């Protein structure tokens, strides 16, 4: 994984660990809501809002619901912060 993406991965890992209150959480690209019990539509919004804040980006209305996997989050952030 290139360095830019790796950094994003690390920062998103911290965000997920805070939101889900699990210091041992490890993220991988294919991870989805199905893999974390508390990841429902509400926490999804929390994840999106927190990522927007963390990386200084704003998602389109259409994108908010479309990001399904951790990999897609990282890709979107990478594109917007390149």
């Amino acid at each position, binding site marked *: 994984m290139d360095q830019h993406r790796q950094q994003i991965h690390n920062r998103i890992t911290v*965000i997920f660990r*805070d*939101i889900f*209150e699990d210091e041992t959480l490890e993220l991988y690209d294919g991870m989805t809501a199905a893999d974390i019990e508390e990841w429902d*539509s*509400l926490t999804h*919004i*929390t994840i999106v*809002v*927190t990522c927007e*804040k*963390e990386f200084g980006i*704003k*998602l*389109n*209305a259409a994108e*908010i*619901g479309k990001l399904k996997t951790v990999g897609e989050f990282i890709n979107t952030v990478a594109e917007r912060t390149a």
Partner: protein
Amino acid sequence: MSVPTDTGETCKGLIANGKHQEALALLRKSADPAADFPTQNGYLRTLKKINLANANLQPLRIALVPFYCSLDHFSETLRLWATLEGFELTIFLAEFDTAEQMLFDPTSDLYAFKPDVIWLFNSWRDVLPREKFPDCTNHAQARVVYARLKNLWEAISTHCSAYIFQNNADLPPDRVFGNHAPQISWSRTSILNQFNQILTENCGPGMTIFDLDYISSLFGKRQWSNEPYWYHSKFPFSHDAFGMVSFHAARLLCGLKGKSAKCLVLDLDNTLWGGVIGDDGMEGIRLGYGTDGEAHLDLQRYVLALKQRGIILAVCSKNEESLAKQPFAEHPDMLLNLDDIALFIANWNNKADNIRHIAKTLNISLSSLVFLDDNPAERALVSRELPMVTVPDLPEDPALYVRALDKGRYFELTAYTDEDSCRNDMYKGNACRAQLQASSTDTETFLKSLDMHSKASYLDNFSLPRIAQLINKGNQFHLTTTRYTETELLQKVEHGAICRCYTLTDSFGDNGLISGVILQPNGDTLEIDTWVMSCRVLCRGMEQFIHNDLIEIAKQRSVSALIGLYLPTPKNKMVADLYPCLGYSIVEETEIKRIFQLDIHQAKSLDNHISPRP
């Protein structure tokens, strides 16, 4: 307000050492209502780790009724701020856009939840036609929407006695007519302003308008509008504003439940004026002219306005008393008089001791004090010694003092009576009476010299807010510690209860309404359901005056007996013997209640030095 980045860590440390109260106090002091959503979530995570069992939180049940919007995350932020302000909140979150179903049906889950407060959470989009921009055919739109809300208010007051928070409309920033919008009577701007105006004009007892528009302006309307989240899942405003809305609501709940601050304790040097009176003298202190002189004057202006609306003012200064008083008496630019200050303490003692003395003399709790002092060392000392006193952080620049005092929302209120505006004078009168009492040689002489008068009357719309205030805030002279909302009081009277209100004036001033009694007819007797009295007027003869009035009422209604009820609590021991002292006989005694009876034929009226006022 800056948020220490290690507050979470410090709290964790305190919690690990079992210091939950300190952790909560630290979180309360450092949490910033304006902080963004991820930070609010951080506060929530910290709060979850704190054991609140000993926090003395007041339980409160609130029903949130979203109109066409989603309040899902908002309810958790509301819970955070309500907890920080001393409430244990139980929240009922109604489903999206189900206001009529929830509120018209007396068997709905919302009513089964038994809310203390119902928050009608509409926003601007609920006031305008949804499918188009308004045109000249929509000029009655505001009235139409108001009619919808009025039906909901009536349904609520028919089916329960909850207090209502009613949102006004948060005007959106986009304007088809641009600057000219307010001058078109049917523009979105005008319709929403009309709507907000109609709400204000029609706000009745038992409800308050929650000024969502003000908060949206404070936050910044463009940031507030977060369109992507509206389109995605109908969040009515930006997540980053949840903290601010929740904080304002929590402070309003404090106002509703009598937990707002009552008294502002003021330092003098470099707070009410620039410079130090002891060093700089009258000519040297900066007040009224020059940059910081004007700023201090504006603070005095704000403080005077607080006093005029009913906040008690006290001074706590490290100074010679005569020097400290000099600017009040002699400085031409001084706005505050000595008359405006209910209690003036200037000495070289520790400020925490002085503040304790202030609370004791004014007979109010420490938690109802706000202490304003430019000196961080004094602030830290008082905060440490008296954690229940609110001590706002003042920035270095006096230009920002008013802002620092105002943004804390310490004195939030939901109802305002004429009596509130006289409160400072009343407390000042008390301080004078205390001095007179100390100097009188016997009680009888003292009481006669007060030249007291009382007016007894039945409950009406003017006395309603004040009687509700007495009933809900009273703890010591409160025989049964009943708690009734204004709506409940009106309902009781409608169903046959008698509510008597008593005022008291004396040579020092008007104490206003100081006691309320609720009588419940029961067959051949009148039961005293509630007898509450302000502690400011104890042992002056009001007890006897009211006793005589109740006998008169009983005779007018030809009842044979008055039944007195005493429910002991840790706080009302002072009235345990009230009924026996007035001549009642004990009828029944259990651990939780005592019932007394006074036979009207044998009842004696008792002497006192209070003359009735017709």
